[in-house]
């Protein structure tokens, strides 16, 4: 990582980060729940808003539907009333034309009779029959050939409304619904006075008998033929008094008053008042629509709706049928419907459901997106911050590593210096010892002339002290190298017996001088072919050290040091043992003997010229070989030191005694 780049280019961001860090931690944490709560609230409000909007749309659509329905009904009502009016008018015209078409003379009934028959054949569809009353009101003729009717010819109808109205007003008259005098069927009359063209005198009344049912059906036929396929609407015609002239529901209701309980009993109670008022208006000449929304008037009761055909909306369009300023009848077009059905059939509403769904989806998606964005920003902020913190930590670590490396380098340099210093010290300390040791030896062996005993003894002390000092210096250097890990080992496969033989050869003179037996105990069969992997010079040093110790601590004459080598059965390690019958190591000192400068018997050591470093060096060398060193000791009986070395499967490439056997051993 380029730490320099990081620290220079991100300065601005560091400041931001610092600000961000200064924010109270608790507040940062409470923002996310707040956002979530906000999203939920937003969703609820959005849903409610959408719901109310949809509700308004719903009622608007309902209103529109109702308006459409009303318009349709009004149109139909107009149509019906117009048809009825035209029908009646055409009949009236026929009747009016009849008297005027001829020069009507009193008593000329035969001619009128012929005309009536002709008219009857023209208007046979709507007119049941024509009849003539003379100026006295006596039935003179009827086109109806039914005996029940012809039986009345000659009978006076002078008190009949048809006669009195036409005679009194000299104007055409259209009667209310009435029962036929002939067959009890509901009929109404369209009558016109007969007036003498010359005298202007009232000569009688000509009237058409119109069967209500026939009349209504002819109109209905026309309505159905001309209307859209609105089969749900029903047509009714009533006379101005409220008597039903025609209703699609049942012909049994003919002549009954539309406001009677018999008719309205099956309808919602509120309808009676509404219908009464509507009819009043119709009679007074206005037209309109009576509207009953049962859903808006629950008090009207659900008994009005049947499970199979539920309706909650009733519309009745009413219109007077006017002929010559006279309201002759009223047309009613009724529609009952379920508003819900109406709405549901509405495509707009269906579409709006989809819109509701889409709105809801959009709203939730938006909310979700907002939530994600907010959380993501929050997270990315956190991640960014953490990343920067990590980068900073990393930077610090890199700096630290650099410092450590620098320090390590320094330490290494110091180590090297120390090592060089040690080597130099060793060299400088040893050099002055060379002549001391050398000359004292020459003095002792008589090369430089004979010495007396006292002189010899003195020179001997000088010599052995100098040798001790030299050994100490070497040991110190070794310890130093071992501690620093600078001791280099040259590992080679070596025959163990040769190591022992070499050791014995070197130390034999010392042992003999002290009259100590030094034995190499070779078990040739057991150790045959064995090789150890080691630095032979260093192992020689260890062996020499241990044997030297043994020689030091045994008594003269009886002392014995025995070196042997064995193979450990399970691991294959080669075990060297150096056994003596010396003083042994006191129990309380046994655990410390491998420590530096530790001497079990200081007085003895001083006499024997030890440095206190020998065993520590031995242990370090054996450890470095991957071996073990230990001992068994019994005070007064003797001590046996053991060390193990890993075996080698290779054959020796060079002689294990490539080193100089005369080389000094610690």
């Amino acid at each position, binding site marked *: 990582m380029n730490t320099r780049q990081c620290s220079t280019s991100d300065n601005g961001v560091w400041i931001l980060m610092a600000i961000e860090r200064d924010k109270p931690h608790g507040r940062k944490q409470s923002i996310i729940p707040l956002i979530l709560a906000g999203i939920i609230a937003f969703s609820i409000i959005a849903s409610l808003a959408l719901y109310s909007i949809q509700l308004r749309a719903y009622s608007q659509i309902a209103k529109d539907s109702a308006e459409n329905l009303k318009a349709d009904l009004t149109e139909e009502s107009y149509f019906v009333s117009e048809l009825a009016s035209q029908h009646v008018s055409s009949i009236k015209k026929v009747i009016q034309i009849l008297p005027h078409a001829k020069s009507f003379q009193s008593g000329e009934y035969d001619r009128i009779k012929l005309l009536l028959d002709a008219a009857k054949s023209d208007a046979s569809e709507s007119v049941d029959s024509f009849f003539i009353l003379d100026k006295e009101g006596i039935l003179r003729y009827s086109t109806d050939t039914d005996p029940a009717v012809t039986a009345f010819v000659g009978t006076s109808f002078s008190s009949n409304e048809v006669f009195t109205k036409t005679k009194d007003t000299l104007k055409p008259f259209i009667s209310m619904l009435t029962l036929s005098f002939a067959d009890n069927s509901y009929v109404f009359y369209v009558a016109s006075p007969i007036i003498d063209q010359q005298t202007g005198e009232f000569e009688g009344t000509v009237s058409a008998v119109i069967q209500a049912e026939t009349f209504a059906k002819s109109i209905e036929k026309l309505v159905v033929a001309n209307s859209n396929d609105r089969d749900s609407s029903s047509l009714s015609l009533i006379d101005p008094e409220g008597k039903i002239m025609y209703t699609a529901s049942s012909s049994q209701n003919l002549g009954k008053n539309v406001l009677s309980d018999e008719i309205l009993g099956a309808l919602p109670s509120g309808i009676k008042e509404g219908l009464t008022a509507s009819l009043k208006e119709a009679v007074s000449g206005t037209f309109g629509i009576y509207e009953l929304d049962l859903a808006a008037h629950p008090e009207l009761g659900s008994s009005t709706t049947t499970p199979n055909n539920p309706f909650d909306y009733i519309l009745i369009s009413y219109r007077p049928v006017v002929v010559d300023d006279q309201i002759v009848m009223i047309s009613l077009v009724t529609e009952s419907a379920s508003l819900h059905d109406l709405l549901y059939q509405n495509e707009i509403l269906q579409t709006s459901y989809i819109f509701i769904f889409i709105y809801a989806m959009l709203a939730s998606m938006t909310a979700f997106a907002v939530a994600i964005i907010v959380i993501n920003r929050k997270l990315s902020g956190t991640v960014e911050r953490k990343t920067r913190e990590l980068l900073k930590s990393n930077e610090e670590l890199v700096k630290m590593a650099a410092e450590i490396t620098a320090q390590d380098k320094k330490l290494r340099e110091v180590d090297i210096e120390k090592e060089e210093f040690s080597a130099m010290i060793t*060299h400088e300390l040893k*050099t002055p010892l*060379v*002549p001391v040791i050398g000359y004292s030896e020459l003095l002792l062996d008589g090369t430089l002339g004979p010495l007396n005993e006292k002189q010899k003894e003195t020179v001997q002390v000088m010599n052995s002290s100098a040798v001790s000092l030299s050994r100490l210096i070497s040991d110190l*250097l070794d310890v130093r190298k071992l501690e620093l890990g600078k001791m280099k080992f040259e590992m080679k496969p070596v025959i163990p017996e040769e190591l022992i033989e070499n050791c014995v050869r070197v130390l034999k003179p010392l042992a003999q001088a002290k009259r100590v037996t030094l034995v190499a105990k070779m078990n040739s069969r057991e150790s045959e072919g064995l090789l150890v992997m080691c630095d032979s010079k260093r192992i020689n040093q260890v062996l020499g050290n241990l044997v030297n110790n043994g020689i030091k601590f045994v008594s003269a004459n009886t002392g014995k040091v025995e070196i042997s080598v064995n193979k450990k059965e399970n691991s294959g390690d080669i075990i060297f043992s150096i056994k003596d019958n010396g003083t042994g190591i006191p129990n309380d000192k046994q655990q410390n003997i491998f420590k530096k400068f530790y001497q079990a018997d200081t007085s003895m050591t001083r006499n024997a010229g030890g440095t206190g470093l020998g065993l520590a060096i031995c242990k370090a060398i054996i450890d470095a070989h991957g071996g073990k060193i230990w001992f068994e000791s019994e005070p007064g009986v003797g001590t046996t030191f053991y060390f193990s070395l890993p075996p080698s499967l290779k054959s020796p490439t060079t002689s294990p005694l490539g080193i*100089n056997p005369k080389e*000094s051993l610690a």
Partner: protein
Amino acid sequence: MMKKILIVDDQEHIANLAEMILVSSGYNCTKANNGKRALELILDQRNEFDLILMDLAMPEVSGIDVLTKLKEDGLLDQNKVVFFTASSLTESEKKDLKKIGALDAMNKPFTKAELLGFVAEHTK
């Protein structure tokens, strides 16, 4: 015939000690107290040394310098050089010396026996 040994050491008493030991054992010794003098003696054709026993650390011209010079001049074949030093050489350091042409090396201080053994081995 007496073996001719050249002893090179800047410390005169060490050179004297070595001479004394070797002479007492029947060697013919010549001494030089610096590298430059040693080179002069070696290059003098009349001197045919059987062994050159030389200190490593000497001012101006060190033992290594002498060895290097001899090697450059192609005189190592007829001159056997061994070193003795107070620097407590390790095996690998000895190996390094052998690589550049020395026969062997021994540590100082030395006993009489050690020195005689060492010299005897290389003058066989």
